[in-house]
């Protein structure tokens, strides 16, 4: 009976709060503006970051977690670019040297790329990335074939003019034709298409499916040796990445006959470095968003407190009546707390709805993918309701302490 009574009191107060907010629609919506902005900021940024995370996870999955990359430049340059400018190119000879000596390496695959025009019949694609790869490429990355096949070892070692095309290249050049066995021109040179790579999707608005792959030796013989290669080294035991990295560093220094006093003139990159930088970046974003969000929530909360105080004064007589016929202090507190938390909850709800629109716009209009994570929806509404409870406490306490006789006399 006691619990039933408590439930009835709660439910009736809920209805009272709803009616009183509905009676002042304009005031209600204006009051919740601060809360809306606060929650919207946090949920929107969360949706962008969650989208980025998803995109990044895809991107990262292309970069194997157990692969080390020996490059001329570090992937992330925090200081001045010119420091790295005079580094010598990484060569195929160094790749062979690593393959010969490294004990941690399971597979070593050098790669290099250039940009070129690709033609098929009357169709022309300009500025396409042509990537030279070796047979071991399929051991260091996830290289799935949609149609046709991967290069054979002979095609790679004999530097044959064969090509594997990205999924979008196929769509753009061949449309409904079967591309396998067809001749295409890359930078004016004839190549035979032997395979189509499986669709990989977009990263930050950049398609991963508009590359053309040829054997690395072929790329060199047809287009020259000028460019630096990147050496991809798959490590046998993923728990020994650190040791493997040190070993590669040692062999690179040996290959380049560097004196102990000379610094490295190459970089060993890995997924983890990117991941760490990415986390630092998003942490910054999160912090900024939570800062702005929290600030507007506080401002919004003070607005709520203010309007609730006004409401208490306006409804002094109503409070007097309620107390006169038996409402306890706790009941009055409950009534006003429900009202202020509902006020904020409505703000949170509006913000969540808006954030769906915002994230849809971001997804459509910018290269960033954005999805509203469920936790931010639930969290947004609950958190803003709690804000309402917090900032409603003082006005509610004030209302509950009103003297019934005095309140009844109030006009």
């Amino acid at each position: 009976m006691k619990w039933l009574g408590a439930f009835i009191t709660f439910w009736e107060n809920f209805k009272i709060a709803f009616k009183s907010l509905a009676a002042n629609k304009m005031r209600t919506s204006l009051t919740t503006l601060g809360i809306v902005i606060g929650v919207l900021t946090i949920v929107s940024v969360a949706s962008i970051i969650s989208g980025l995370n998803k995109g990044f996870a895809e991107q990262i999955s292309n970069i194997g977690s157990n692969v080390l990359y020996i490059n001329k430049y570090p992937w992330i340059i925090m200081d001045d670019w010119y420091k790295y400018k005079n580094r010598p190119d990484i060569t195929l000879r160094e790749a062979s040297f690593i393959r010969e000596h490294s004990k941690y390496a399971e597979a070593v695959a050098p790669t290099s790329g250039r940009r070129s025009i690709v033609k098929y019949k009357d169709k022309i694609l300009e500025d396409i990335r042509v990537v030279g790869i070796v047979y071991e490429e399929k051991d260091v990355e996830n290289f799935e074939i949609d149609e046709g096949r991967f290069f054979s070892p002979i095609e790679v070692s004999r530097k044959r003019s064969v090509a594997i095309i990205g999924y979008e290249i196929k769509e753009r050049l061949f449309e409904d034709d079967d591309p396998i066995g067809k001749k295409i021109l890359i930078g004016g040179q004839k190549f035979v298409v032997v395979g189509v790579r499986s669709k990989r999707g977009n990263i930050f608005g950049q398609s991963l499916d508009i590359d053309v792959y040829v054997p690395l030796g072929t790329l060199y013989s047809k287009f020259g040796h000028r460019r630096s290669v990147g050496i991809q080294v798959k490590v046998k035991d993923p728990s020994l990445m650190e040791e493997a990295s040190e070993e590669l560093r040692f062999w690179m220094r040996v290959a380049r006959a560097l004196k102990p006093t000379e610094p490295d003139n190459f970089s060993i990159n890995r997924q983890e470095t990117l991941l760490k930088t990415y986390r630092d970046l998003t942490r910054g974003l999160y912090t900024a968003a939570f800062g702005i969000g929290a600030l507007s929530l506080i401002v919004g909360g003070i607005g709520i407190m203010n309007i609730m105080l006004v409401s208490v004064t306006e409804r002094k007589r109503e409070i007097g009546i309620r107390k006169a016929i038996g409402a306890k202090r706790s009941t009055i507190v409950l009534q006003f707390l429900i009202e202020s938390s509902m006020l904020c909850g409505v703000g949170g709800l509006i913000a969540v709805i808006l954030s769906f629109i915002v994230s849809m716009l971001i997804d459509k209009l910018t290269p960033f993918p954005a999805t509203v994570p469920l936790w931010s929806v639930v969290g947004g509404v609950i958190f803003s309701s709690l804000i309402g409870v917090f900032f409603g406490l003082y006005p509610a306490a004030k209302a509950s302490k009103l003297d019934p006789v005095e309140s009844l006399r109030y006009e």
Partner: protein
Amino acid sequence: MDKLIELKGIKKVYKVGKVEVHALRGIDLTVRKGEYIAIMGPSGSGKSTLMNIIGCLDTPTEGVYHLEGVPVHEMNDSQLAEIRNKKIGFVFQTFNLLPRANALHNVELPLIYAGVPASRRKKIAEHALEIVGLKDRKHHRPSELSGGQRQRVAIARALVNRPSLLLADEPTGNLDSKAGEEVMKIFEELYENGNTIILVTHEKYIADHARRIVHIRDGRIIDDTGVAS
């Protein structure tokens, strides 16, 4: 007969700045179950103050108050609220209805605070409205009712929790004589059905409805016609 109310040495002092206003200077009053009492006295004599104390809306500065043998003067805020809800029905001069709620909801209000479930609440409230002759006006808001009708809604609200005591502070003060008479007829019926009623009035002809008249001046009882028989 049972003692319903026993007041002994009730004093009420208001402090306004440094001035002390002695609204009640020592009231002794015993009310039995089923009495119908009118309190009369000039303006400012302390009638409303006394009613508010009897109705547990206010607490005395000094003195002892027993309601049905229970020491009310020792109660805390939440216990007083419960007394107001269950034991006392208060009718005010200015009606004091919730303006945004319809008649039915206004009458239901004490039942809500008593924790009565919705369906039962509705039945009881409708019955109370029937007693005051407003069954067909239950969906009207106070602004859509006449003064007399509003006061009858307020009486229905006061009755709804079957209180031991019905208090009315100048219930006809804002009504014309015809509406006033209607309200007094309801009080008469309630009295005949065994309710205990205390009302405050300035008008002799209103006070004549009661069976006992208590005169107050300057916070003291100066005359009491006593219990009839």
